[in-house]
């Protein structure tokens, strides 16, 4: 079993009445709700949290791309990964990913991912999402009817750019280039492992199966409701005669550990509420541009994660419901160990993406959650799927060949991170004002 500590990087200080006052957390959320000074502290807190996860022995650090979105403050996850490449030494950099149809030309992604792979000594996982309808159609103006075709073309171009020995010409429908000649090239050969984050489009299963890419279902609904999609994926794999290797699937899950089950509720319930009722408050009109999902996916009846129907389902859920229905795996280390093993077996999943900072969770609590999980849960679940080979993790340089940054000098001149106030304190004071 492999563990990726995954950050969404939410804005933690949306107003109490956000849901009543504004129609969407995404696309047209008022800009004056964002305070760049708070943003400064949040980015630094969040990078601290990812770096801490590296120290605690997580296999991967996860970042992803969203636009005009208050629960995902990473329009460019590559910037975060670049920072992590220099400040971490062990964990893989799981960039899940770059919405490749949005880059013009898409070799920009091949180049930046090659840079990240080279800087980090071959620790990169390259994620290629189509991207949500909110991000791609509404924020970045891509035509819904053609985005998938554009995505497939970008995918083929990037792989060819990574693997071809000589300069080549690319005469695509969406991209035309006379000279494709990637400098630098990635360390990993033939290229970094490719993970395809999906939200449940049925075409993505075929695509992953046909290309031997890992399929990552980034669900916010938890493992019980994720079952339908996981089964869909394994059905396709099985029908195509592929190995049913659990490491070919990733799954995102909110995980919240405390000393006891009761303490977990006390610690985490308000932040779950913030996440589901403020962060996922997305205007229905933005949830699914016509043509974004194919008719085949619509007819498969897989419900989108955001939008009015999705939020109606969640509306009156309390902590007990969130736990019961698997939205969160929470409780004492013992409880989490048991439910997590059960969940991963249930999904046949080998790459867990843990959402351990959720909604408004402050740094102290994130640290506790991370530490408890790493020491009290992870060692006990790690052995799961040991009979399978993980073919979807990076193949890095030998540890002795990995360069680390020279020591920097400001550390002695500045107060250490531990002694300066965390974002929460200042920002809460600001909000109270």
């Amino acid at each position, binding site marked *: 079993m492999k563990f990726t500590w995954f950050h969404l990087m939410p804005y933690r200080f949306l107003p109490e009445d956000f849901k009543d006052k504004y129609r969407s957390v995404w696309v047209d959320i008022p800009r004056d709700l964002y305070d760049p000074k708070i943003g400064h502290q949040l980015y630094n807190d969040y990078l601290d949290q990812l770096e801490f996860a590296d120290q605690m022995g997580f296999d991967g650090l996860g970042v992803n791309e969203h636009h005009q979105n208050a629960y995902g403050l990473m329009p460019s996850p590559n910037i975060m990964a670049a920072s992590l490449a220099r400040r971490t030494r062990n964990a893989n950099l799981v960039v899940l990913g770059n919405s490749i149809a949005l880059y013009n030309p898409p070799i920009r992604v091949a180049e930046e991912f090659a840079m990240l792979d080279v800087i980090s000594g071959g620790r990169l996982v390259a994620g290629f999402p189509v991207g949500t309808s909110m991000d791609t*159609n*509404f924020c970045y*103006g891509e*035509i*819904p*009817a*053609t985005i998938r075709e554009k995505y497939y073309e970008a995918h083929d171009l990037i792989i060819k750019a990574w693997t071809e020995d000589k300069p080549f010409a690319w005469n695509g429908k969406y991209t035309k280039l006379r000279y494709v000649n990637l400098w630098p090239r990635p360390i990993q050969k033939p290229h970094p492992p490719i993970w395809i984050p999906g939200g449940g489009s049925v075409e993505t299963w075929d695509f992953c199966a046909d290309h031997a890419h890992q399929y990552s279902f980034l669900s916010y609904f938890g493992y019980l409701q994720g079952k339908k999609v996981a089964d869909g994926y394994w059905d396709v794999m099985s029908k195509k005669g592929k190995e049913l290797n659990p490491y070919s699937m990733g799954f995102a899950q909110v995980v919240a550990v405390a000393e006891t089950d009761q303490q977990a509720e006390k610690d985490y319930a308000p932040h779950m509420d913030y996440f589901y009722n403020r962060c996922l408050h997305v*205007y*229905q*009109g*933005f949830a699914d*541009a*016509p*043509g974004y*999902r194919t*008719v085949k996916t*619509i*007819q498969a009846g897989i419900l989108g994660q955001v939008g009015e129907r999705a939020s109606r389902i969640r509306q009156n859920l309390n902590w007990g419901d969130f736990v019961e229905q698997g939205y969160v795996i929470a409780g004492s280390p013992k409880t989490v160990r048991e439910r997590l093993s059960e969940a991963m077996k249930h999904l046949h999943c080998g790459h867990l993406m843990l959402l351990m900072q959720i909604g408004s969770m402050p740094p102290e609590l994130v640290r506790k959650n991370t530490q408890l999980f790493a020491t009290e849960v992870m060692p006990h679940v790690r052995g799961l799927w040991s009979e399978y080979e993980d073919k979807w993790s990076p193949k890095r340089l030998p540890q002795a060949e990995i360069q680390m940054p020279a020591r920097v000098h400001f550390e002695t001149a500045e107060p250490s991170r531990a002694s300066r106030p965390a974002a929460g304190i200042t920002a809460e004071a600001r909000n109270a004002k």
Partner: protein
Amino acid sequence: MNTTQKILGGKFSIEMQTFGSRGEPLLFLHGAGGLTGMDGFLEELGADFRVYAPHLPGYGESTGNEHIDDVIDAALFYHQLMDELGIPSAHVVGHSMGGMLAAELAALDVHRAKKLVLVSSAGFWLDAHPIPDLFAAQLNEIAGLLFHDTKSAAAQMLAAIPQDMKALEVWYVERVKRFAMASKFLWPIPDRGLKKRAYRISSPTLLVWGESDKLVPPIYAKEFSSRIRNCKLEIIKQAGHMVMYEQPAAFCKVVRDFLNG
């Protein structure tokens, strides 16, 4: 009304409705919502003209939408259709998105449109008068954007959403198919460069606008008249964007007078 199926160049299969058997040919290009099955104005125009109302590929039973990516492809598709119907030139009437395509059809080949009628037409963008985002509109907001009076019989009928689950799914899938096709011309801003080409349009042109069009406000008629040289405007009272459904008699009168005049 007759419904026929026509194959074009091995690429398209076109479902088409025809009305009337006498008079000059009239090609009608529907809007983003497509033909509704309750298109009484076409029946009425059929008294004077041979009316051809094809479903654009991606609409109804028409196929071949993968061969049309932009307004130029669409305009050339209509040229091909006209040739195969044996009406290399005809009166061309387009509504909304269909107006945009009709204008392109006429600009790309000035001999195609004998006379041109653009109704509540898309095709331009004015920063001071942004067109509401129909694609992001909730189902319960759409009628308000399209109709002068949402309580009228026409509005009630056209904006109705099936209650039965099975019928709802069929309706929803058809709507997604249609809007996905429309997005090739209208997403995210309904401007594909007609302003560069409109100077070519030489056909006598009638602009018809509903007085209270909230989707493409009547100010856009001014934009068309400033860019098309031989233009005349008719404003229809008590009508919104769906002018020919709300005021079919007034609509047919101005169109007939113009085409016969």
